[in-house]
């Protein structure tokens, strides 16, 4: 039986200079983080830039990387901070990015990509603080307590933002699910 190596052990290998450990961490966390970033960043390209930056930051930490206790939360907080700086930079540049799906992506992912795009679009109609709670709850499967730790808010605040967000998303997307039935 093949037991999955613990995060601590992978981080120790990374700290010792083994870049195979970076690939293992990428396989474990990149997809989930990307889902969160796509919901919070202004474009898919930005989400990928932030994702890349977060993983490179782990390498930059050298041996200190093995001191990280809760890796998933650490990565999400790092991603959140970087996404916020990127958003500030974009605002300063005065660039208004259009949220357009990359042309190759829809072909690659088939019919489901259309719904994904609709959901992304709906998420971006929510205030950012509600959007990130929904992304963490729905696509990361986190509890309100865990969400509170990542976003530095109380679990009650997280729950209340989530409820408002779900109500609004139901208004926007309700028709989409009716179509599917």
């Amino acid at each position: 039986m093949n037991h999955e190596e613990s995060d601590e052990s992978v981080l120790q290998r990374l700290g010792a200079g083994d870049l195979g450990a970076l690939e293992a961490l990428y396989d474990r966390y990149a997809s989930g983080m990307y889902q969160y970033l796509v919901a919070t960043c202004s474009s898919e390209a930005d989400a990928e830039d932030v994702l890349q930056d977060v993983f490179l930051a782990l390498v930059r930490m050298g041996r200190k990387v093995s001191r990280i206790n809760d890796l998933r939360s650490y990565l999400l907080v790092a991603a959140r901070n970087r996404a916020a700086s990127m958003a500030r930079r974009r605002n300063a540049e005065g660039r208004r990015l259009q949220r357009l799906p990359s042309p190759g992506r829809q072909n690659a992912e088939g019919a489901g990509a259309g719904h994904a795009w609709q959901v992304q679009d709906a998420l971006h109609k929510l205030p950012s603080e509600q959007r990130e709670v929904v992304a963490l709850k729905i696509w990361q499967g986190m509890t309100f307590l865990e969400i509170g730790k990542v976003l530095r808010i109380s679990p009650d605040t997280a729950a209340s933002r989530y409820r408002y967000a779900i109500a609004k998303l139901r208004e926007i997307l309700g028709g989409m699910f009716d179509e599917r039935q």
Partner: protein
Amino acid sequence: MNDNDFENRLKQIPLGSPTRGLQGRVVAQAKALRRRQRRGRLLRGVLLAAALLLVAVNLLFERTYQSRMCVLMTGSSRVPRGVAKATGDARAAQMRVQLMNELLRSNGG
């Protein structure tokens, strides 16, 4: 449809995944970063070694200079204790004064 159904439907729609080449790009950049870090460490080591070597050579030349001065002034290469203890400019000045005194004393002055 209640809230739970709605949430379950949402969970079934993945928001996408990073492009396939991204992992390769991250690893390539990590390798380049590691190379830069190694080079930086090597450069810092070389600079530190060079600085230590400079200090060592400086001390060696200073000792040689003091010994030669002592030979010229007193005929002995032994540096007087007070001179060896002093540092920097003070040491040089003190050495000159001490050697002059010894020279005057040996000439019966």
